[in-house]
């Protein structure tokens, strides 16, 4: 009786727990790898957007400079 009770309350993991854990880990690893790839793509987009933002600022600065020069050039004529 004592033996039966000891078995019923044992903390031992069921058989084949390693295989079950491995199968679920494979699934989570696949999802994780995918998320990492998506994160690297997101970082690339962020870099490209920053570049384009700088480019737009440069062009706006160039346009504003050209507008400022226009009246001066007209006055000298």
């Amino acid at each position: 009786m004592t033996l039966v009770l000891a078995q019923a309350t044992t903390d031992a993991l069921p058989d084949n727990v390693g295989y079950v854990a491995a199968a679920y880990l494979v699934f989570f690893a696949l999802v994780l790898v995918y998320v990492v790839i998506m994160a690297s793509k997101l970082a690339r987009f962020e870099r490209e957007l920053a570049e384009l933002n700088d480019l737009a600022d440069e062009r706006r600065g160039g346009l504003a400079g050209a507008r400022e020069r226009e009246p001066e050039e007209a006055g000298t004529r």
Partner: protein
Amino acid sequence: MLYGTRLRALSIATLITMTAAFGLAFFYAPMDADQGFMQKIFYVHVPMAMVALGGFVFGGIMAIQHLRTGDPKHDLRSYVAIHLSLILGVGVLVTGAIWAKASWGHWWVWDEPTLVSFLIVFLLYATYQPMRFSIEDRERQARYASVFAIVAGAFVPLNFLAVRLAQAYTHPRVFATADGGLPAKMQLAFLVSLAGMALLYVTLWRYEMASKHTSAQLRALRRKLSGDDAVTPVGRTAAPSLPTT
């Protein structure tokens, strides 16, 4: 179409469903009398296989749309669907091999029709991307890839049929057998797992589509700001390219 719309809600729904599914699988569904604890692999392996095969069929349907309309967005949808299904397919083969080792003592059993037919489907689709890459002309590439996706997509249901028609019973029969199928608690855990896996697939599909669209829009923006010379040509690639004008 903006693929990023409602992506946050979809991601949260996926997370909740997947957590519920695995919770039900481990704490609610009873232990299988024959296989014991290792039967828990069923709740990740089978939904993943069904969603992967469903994704291949979805890729075929999108390919039909592409051939009907000529719209490159359908080719991209088909490509992303097949790409994701291939990733899930890798998961199916690996988790299946682990289950086989735990159940039969072998990583792979060649005389089991279910396993071999899934491997054939997987290898068939593994040629999809190299085939795309081998065709330089983008329009031809899209057309040929669509034809491939339709033919291969029609072949996929045979995999489901093979499971039913198989006479050998070496593959674990834990779903809808002649004895009356799964017990109600196991069935609930399985259905929630299937819903979670389907949601995960849709979420990742939308993430990938949003990523491809953003990439195309960035190229268009660069072209507008700096002219055609500033945009480096895409070069030969397996991935479809969207018009960036």
